[in-house]
């Protein structure tokens, strides 16, 4: 009997988290925002979300088979990618475009780089940018709940003062009466999901807080006609900032793994988002900002290797 004893290296116990549970938690946290999107924009939004999730999962499944790698579709990360991509699309998006985007995210951005944990940019965001470039018209056809206007609040701001009367107020922004992507419509429900993720310790607050903080600071300073007169709150609540800061910038694979790195990453995202939103002729900034910071993660991590406990020495 004794030679049958199992010889493994310590530790001999593990806690009960696993990749699938973490991904499931992310999906749970996103559901209220999805529900809000469907509520405000109608059932077609639900169809878009189902299509992106299904397309992502199937794309992952097939690629793993073709690459002859072990099947990873069970870790649910593909479903998360699909859901986040769907939430970043306008409710009117033609379904075939949604499918192409999903396949792009999973096959090109994620699997060709080695699958989960290996891709260097966020697949959903990369796909979104790819789609915005390829189908600019379809990707910006918005609907506003209870209204006929077809612009987002940020689009309206860019159009200038004449459109300003049509801008929704803070409360509408917070609750979700505004044009935009399916998942970014209601800051309130997004925050409910964010609280859930933090409480479940799926994400830490370093990235969201530095992101939103630095973004708010810059939009306050430079967002108005004079310095220090910008409407930071308006900027934070509109566009995909909340969705981006809590659910996309915190993507494990494409954000730094250490505390200091996360702080730098979050500030970088905030600064870039503000710059793009205020000084470019592109109304959104979140996707580009996060993508740019994604590519800088290896660099950030390399320069923020922590010192060992009690250590002054940097190299053994």
């Amino acid at each position: 009997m004794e030679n049958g004893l199992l010889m493994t290296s310590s530790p001999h116990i593990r806690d009960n988290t696993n990749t699938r549970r973490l991904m499931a938690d992310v999906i749970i946290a996103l559901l209220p925002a999805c529900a809000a999107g469907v509520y405000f924009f109608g059932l077609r939004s639900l169809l878009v979300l189902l299509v992106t999730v299904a397309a992502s999962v199937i794309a992952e499944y097939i690629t793993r088979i073709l690459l002859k790698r072990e099947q990873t579709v069970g870790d649910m990360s593909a479903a998360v990618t699909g859901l986040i991509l769907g939430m970043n699309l306008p409710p009117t998006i033609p379904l075939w475009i949604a499918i192409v985007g999903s396949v792009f995210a999973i096959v090109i951005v994620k699997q060709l780089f080695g699958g989960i944990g290996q891709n260097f940019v966020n697949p959903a965001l990369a796909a979104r940018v790819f789609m915005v470039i390829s189908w600019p018209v379809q990707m910006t056809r918005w609907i506003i709940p209870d209204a006929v206007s077809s612009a987002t609040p940020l689009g309206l701001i860019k159009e200038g003062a004449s459109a300003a009367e049509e801008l929704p107020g803070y409360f509408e922004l917070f609750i979700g009466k505004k044009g935009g992507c399916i998942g970014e419509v209601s800051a309130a429900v997004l925050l409910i999901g964010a609280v859930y993720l933090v409480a479940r310790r799926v994400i830490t607050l370093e990235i969201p807080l530095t992101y939103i903080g630095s973004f708010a600071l810059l939009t306050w300073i430079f967002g108005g006609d004079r310095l220090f007169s910008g409407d930071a709150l308006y900027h934070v609540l509109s566009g995909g900032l909340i969705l981006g800061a809590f659910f996309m910038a915190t993507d494990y694979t494409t954000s730094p793994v250490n505390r200091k790195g996360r702080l730098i990453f979050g500030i970088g995202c905030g600064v870039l988002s503000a710059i793009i939103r205020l000084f470019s002729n592109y109304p959104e900034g979140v996707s580009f900002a996060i993508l740019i910071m994604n590519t800088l993660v290896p660099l950030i991590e390399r320069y923020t290797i922590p010192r060992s406990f009690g250590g002054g020495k940097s190299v053994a």
Partner: protein
Amino acid sequence: MLFTKKATFRGGVPVPHWKNTAEAETLQMGVPSKVYIPMLQHIGAPCTPVVNKGDTVKVGQVIGTSDKLISAPIHSSVSGRVTNVAPMVVFNGQSVMTVEIETDGLQEVHEDVKPPVFNNKEEFLEQLKKSGLVGLGGAGFPTHVKLAPPPGKEVDTLIINGSECEPYITSDYREIIENSWNILLGVYTLVDLFGFKNVWIGIEDNKPEAIKVLSNIAAKDDKYSDVVKVVKLKSRYPQGAEKMLIYACTGRKVPPGKLPADVGVIVMNINSVSFIREYIRTGMPLVKKRVTVDGPAVKNPANVEVPIGTPIADVFEFCGGFRSEPVKVLMGGPMMGVAQYSLQYPVLKHTNALIALDEKSAKIPPEGPCIRCGRCVDVCPMNLMPLHINRHSLHGDVEALEKYHANDCMECGCCSYVCPAKRHLVQSIRLAKAQLRQAATAAAAKGGK
């Protein structure tokens, strides 16, 4: 005096406690028919056997010695006849010269066993060396060496480790409950001899009874009550790791590659100080050990006092055997313990627990790809980045291993414990250390030419 330290160390994990044997009084195990006493049960030089096959030996008799500085003599735990002196594989897979003794059941005590006489620190250390005491918390560093730091290192603080942060293990706790006076009298002796200005007795807050008992006694003696303080520590693994404990008690940080003495501290296990007191009273060297026997596969979990050298199998037998097939048997706790290849391996001086896991609890989930969640980094008490060490070790990139301070890992296991991808991080870090050693040897050989 009782102190509560809210401040703890950074990182760590809340492991389950599973202190099933906390309320069980220590049982005395009888003498097994045979004991196997290895000549290396400490960090340092192995001993040379001083008995031969056929010799009769008595309890407390020296059977192995070494003239090296860092070593501790080995004594017979039984009376009987030496039946073999030969190399044997021990708990960590090393082959060590081992004295095999067939017991006669009489447990006659050797005539050299008498209370030590000493008048000062030097004489005390001389006598302590003869007791064979090594750190009983797990590492097994010879205590007389630890208490004599090299000149120039000013040690003002003694920390007594009673945190016992591993799941299951309660052998320190039982010592506190059953022999509380011994612990404090041992501490007082050390204070008198070495002039420590501060003594911290650190205990995790999941053992309120132990904290109460010790702080009540510590408050009794005016002479020492200012010096000796009981510290209530937060229950968080690895609170009992030397560097973490020193930091929690004193706020001092031991730099990588340095010893506690470098920051003026000596850390001793609670059982070690208690032993010192008992040794001064009776002169009986270290020949028995309390071990916690537990785990889902064990019939009657208990704390058992065992003659050193007793085969593990006999100890389990004493606890009613197994309730189900033991699939994995650990010496030590589930976080840092070592899986045993054979139940014939003997209990050693620093063995504090024997854990038998059944099919279900022994199961380690399969490894998946790293998802870069950063949890391993967040929990590492040493501030390392285990995911990167893991990756570079698999690629054999020695330069990167150095950059990520692989050698500073204390193998506490927190990183592997929390990894959602269930990566074998600690295992690969051990490999990384070996790779670094190899590279260093290769470099030295090259430089020597």
